[in-house]
């Protein structure tokens, strides 16, 4: 296979990882919201922690994007 074509295919496959990260972030905030609707007074204290969890989950999606970028522009 032509190496340039293989790089593009590889970049496309790597970008699928971002969908998994999106599911992860959605799970975190969905759980936060369902908990906040049951116990609204406790939700303000944990709001910051929800963002930390979301940033950590989103970080892994960004790593997948990074692999795609590395394939396209660096290698």
């Amino acid at each position: 296979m032509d190496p340039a074509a293989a790089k593009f295919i590889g970049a496309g496959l790597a970008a699928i990882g971002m969908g998994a990260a999106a599911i992860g972030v959605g799970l975190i905030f969905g759980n936060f919201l369902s908990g906040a609707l049951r116990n609204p007074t406790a939700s303000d204290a944990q709001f910051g922690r929800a963002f930390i969890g979301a940033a950590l989950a989103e970080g892994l999606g960004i790593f997948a994007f990074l692999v795609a970028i590395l394939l396209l522009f660096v290698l």
Partner: protein
Amino acid sequence: MAEAMDPIHQFNIEPIVKLHLFGLDASFTNASLFMLVIVLAACALMLFGTSKRSIVPSRLQSAAEMAYEFVANTVRMSAGNEGMKFFPFVFSLFLFVLFANLIGLIPYTFTVTSQIIVTFAFAALVIGLVIAYGVIRHGAHFLGLFVPSGVSIWLLPFIVLIEVISFISRPISLSVRLFANMLAGHITLKVMGGFVAALLGAGAYAIIAPLPLAAIVALTAFELLVAVLQAYVFAILTCVYLNDAIHPGH
């Protein structure tokens, strides 16, 4: 024309004042210039914000006080009162990363934290500090970090191996998270900008050129959130890792 619309071009490091020391390239580059701007901006915020100590604060004083309180509460909550001795370090780190991310959003600037070497230097500094403080303060007991309490003797080798790998992945994840977030954001913005320029130059298609422009506005708002969030996540993970050095063992 294609080179100017290349999204990677914005990350090139251009020397401004060429300087060679002991065979190494120590030029003053655009990256150095923006790091200087960031340090001056952070100093200006804190110095001018706290110069008039009025009881009812002005906007700048309020901003400086809120930044101080925010980081102080974060350090105290994650690392306890003994962790407060690291407060100046965490505060400087937080302000530098925050200003680096924010200044990078201005058009035609250089984003310092979009260079892996910059973020890796910060992550290496944090993890180096964690290990050094842990070893100086607790000696060999620091290795108790890798041995959670209440684990059966048969599982111990595997658990310790997993804990060591997870510890080694901390500087990597800390640096790559910030770097990749900044890189991805700026590449996306540049690619969208390329779409606007390409549509405007394509004759009849210029009518839909405002669509990518609206996307850039929305993306810049999102990038603003990401800039602040990533600075906060970097600072709070620093506090969590320092807590591991101060109180090792689960």
